[in-house]
């Protein structure tokens, strides 16, 4: 086996070891370790992606001496490698951009724990993407759940404590449901390996045996992971959790952790259950309905939020709705559109969180819109970063969000029927609402400051400027290189299945 094919294993073990080691290091060194780790992981995954695209194949990797149904196994393809590359880049920029805030807001003795959690979140995300075994997926769900709770309560004040508690309860409910469905699927099929489950599920579906348990199991997977990824009716923990924690934590939680859960659900539905079974049981309509409602309701909540961070948080609900609606169309084009939107939203949302914290710094630490007037001029880099990311989410051409909306509508046209009309309508309404709240914010940022409002402008530190420039480049590249990325996604998706 060529060395390059060991990269997923190297990346996962390296992230775990850095996570464990960071606990022993003082905060300032742990910070550097995390940044270096994210860069290395991004480079390794990018190399792997290029290699696999050239080879046009995916492969299985034994974790140990025993073949798959008995031992653990990884499975890597261009799709997983691309997603891992992007997530590690986002983590790199989020850690860089938020490190100044972490220094101020976190107890200096406990600063290294932030970086322990960031490293372990990176390890968990990669494991959930690469694993070919359902139970390994669950183990890393647990790590991510506890890690993200710790990330929320790193900044210790009343708000974060309560929101961490609420997140913990909701998230454990989700984990419990996922575990329950894993047990049910094991009882029904006798396997934990994804390919073997697929074969057994197809046989069960054809024979009509265990029809009710199978449906309930799929439903439990959907609700369990839906709660964890903040799908609309289960999103009540989200605004507080993202609104009051450190900017790094908000960025990582919204753009990496929730995406990892969605991708695990994606893997379960497309590869483990099989899209034909899901469509046959009409469960994709469940996805679609929840997704469409989330697209509208999330944007509505965002429009009447008074606080910048909370507005950005609520906008996540809407964007996650897009992803679920894409998955719910039940056709390949919809799934690829959902994958592309995951990339776009990751890059844009983390940029919004990091830059909104820099904008608040330039407005005497306030996050309300009346004080933020003129913040874009007081802190130019943050203003540009926020505007680019907002434009990307709204769907201004050249940027990624435009391509994503285009791909969604194309998918809607090829789906036809009710799906087409509902999706197009929801896209139109949601885009209008996006314009309303995001452009209103951008305009606010460049309006002259309120009369009598004076403040000392806190300049973002060098690392934060680097991170914001990085985010701008990432967002623009995702739009400019849309065709190659879509090619990788399409090839990767066909290999993934």
């Amino acid at each position: 086996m060529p060395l390059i094919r060991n990269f997923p294993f190297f990346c996962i073990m390296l992230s775990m070891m850095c996570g464990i080691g960071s606990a022993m290091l003082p905060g300032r060194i742990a910070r550097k370790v995390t940044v270096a780790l994210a860069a290395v992981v991004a480079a390794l995954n990018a190399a792997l992606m290029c290699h696999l695209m050239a080879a046009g194949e995916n492969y299985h990797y034994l974790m140990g001496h025993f073949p798959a149904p008995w031992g653990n196994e990884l499975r890597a393809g261009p799709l997983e490698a691309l997603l891992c590359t992007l997530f590690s880049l986002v983590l790199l920029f989020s850690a860089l951009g938020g490190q100044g805030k972490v220094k101020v807001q976190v107890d200096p003795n406990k600063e290294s724990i932030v970086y322990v959690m960031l490293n372990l979140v990176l390890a968990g995300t990669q494991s959930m993407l690469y694993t070919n075994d359902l139970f390994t997926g669950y183990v890393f769900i647990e790590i991510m759940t506890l890690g993200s709770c710790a990330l929320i309560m790193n900044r210790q004040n009343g708000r974060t404590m309560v929101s961490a508690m609420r997140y913990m309860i909701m998230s454990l409910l989700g984990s419990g449901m996922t575990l329950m469905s894993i047990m049910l699927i094991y009882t029904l099929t006798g396997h934990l390996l994804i390919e073997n489950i697929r074969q057994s599920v197809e046989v069960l579906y054809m024979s009509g045996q265990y029809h009710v348990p199978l449906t309930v199991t799929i439903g439990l997977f959907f609700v369990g992971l839906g709660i964890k990824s903040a799908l609309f009716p289960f999103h009540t923990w989200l605004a507080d959790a993202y609104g009051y924690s450190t900017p790094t934590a908000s960025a990582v939680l919204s753009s990496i952790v929730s995406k990892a859960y969605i991708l695990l659900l994606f893997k379960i539905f497309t590869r483990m259950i099989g899209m034909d079974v899901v469509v046959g049981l009409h469960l994709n309509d469940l996805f679609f309905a929840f997704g469409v409602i989330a697209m509208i309701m999330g944007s509505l909540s965002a429009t009447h939020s008074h606080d910048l961070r909370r507005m950005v948080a609520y906008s996540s609900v809407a964007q996650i709705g897009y992803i679920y609606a894409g998955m719910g169309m039940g056709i390949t084009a919809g799934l690829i559109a959902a994958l592309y939107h995951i990339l776009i939203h990751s890059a844009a949302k983390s940029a919004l969180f990091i830059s909104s914290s820099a904008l608040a710094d330039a407005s005497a630490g306030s996050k309300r819109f009346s004080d933020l007037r003129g913040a874009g001029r007081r802190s130019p880099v943050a203003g540009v970063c926020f505007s680019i990311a907002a434009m990307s989410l709204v769907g201004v051409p050249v940027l990624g969000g435009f391509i994503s909306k285009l791909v969604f509508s194309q998918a809607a046209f090829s789906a036809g029927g009710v799906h087409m009309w509902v999706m197009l309508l929801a896209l139109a309404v949601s885009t209008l609402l996006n314009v309303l709240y995001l452009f209103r914010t951008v305009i606010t940022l460049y309006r002259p400051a309120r009369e009598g409002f004076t403040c000392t402008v806190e300049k973002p530190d060098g690392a934060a400027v680097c991170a914001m420039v990085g985010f701008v480049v990432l967002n623009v590249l995702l739009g400019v290189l849309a065709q190659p990325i879509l090619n990788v996604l399409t090839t990767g998706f066909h290999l993934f299945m």
Partner: protein
Amino acid sequence: MKKNESFWQKLLSLDEISYENPLDEQLIDAETDQPDSVLRQQSPVEYAFAEILQEEKQEELYIAERLEANSLHAWVGRQSKKWAKPVYSLLCALFCVALVVFLMSTVIELPPFGAADNPTNNEVAQRYLEKGLEETGAVNMVAGMILDYRAFDTFGESTVLFVAACSVLLLLKLGDHKDGEVSPAMLEAEWDDRHHEPKNDAILQMAARVLVPVILLFGMYIVLAGHLGPGGGFSGGAVMGAGLILYLNAFGFRKTGRFFTYKTFRWVTFVALMTYALLKSYSFFCGANHLESGISLGTPGAILSSGLILPLNICVGLIVMCIMYAFYTLFRKGGM
């Protein structure tokens, strides 16, 4: 905010609002607050009072804000009509009943427990039972399964414990990491601890003198013989942790501090987890690239057998012991 403004007017003028409402003013917290822990260490008692007052105030704000943020609750809150709340409760109850019916019907349809033709009785379980001894060298099949066949999952599980310990540390640890330094918060916790826990209880000390060595020895036996019979790192570690906690309760922190401090905890956990990671990485790498690892399985049944399972069990046992003990001390007085 005027009542008669239309929705659109409100929406487009969010940045004009001057926040006359004091409630709104407090709802938005500043980005640049000091870490509370600094305050807490300066004057713990004053801080506690201030915090309680603040919390009470925040409680009210929270309720107000939740009503605003959560539209369903807001809807229920706005319905001053008498029927709204009972209807809401009734719907909740109906939902729960429906859920129970669904899940029960699922359970009824599942394959009967222990039947010979169940789907779980397949080639996976068969190979574990028939070839397990030969392939892993462990007499205890459970140990062979979790520490050899599926060792990656177990590494994940040990890391879950580590993450949990870090989270509790983050929440409850008081004072500086350096040994010997005592902050006011730590002194207060110490006083609190002494106040509630009687020291030098003769009966407890006598019992502990007899029991602790036995418990620790038994724990070590469970860990070391984990590959030979029922037991292993998780159960043995829990027993050893319980032994340490009993010792601490009988003789107090000062005596335990002679051999088990915060530093010991950090180093033991770190070294054990790293050893696990490195040993297994080597084994995974060899396995995946089809190389000979050169780890001999030995004679099944001997204490030095079954390859890596024994060292891995020791690592897991140490991790579990340390983390059990750390949980206890952190919850009791925020440090060791």
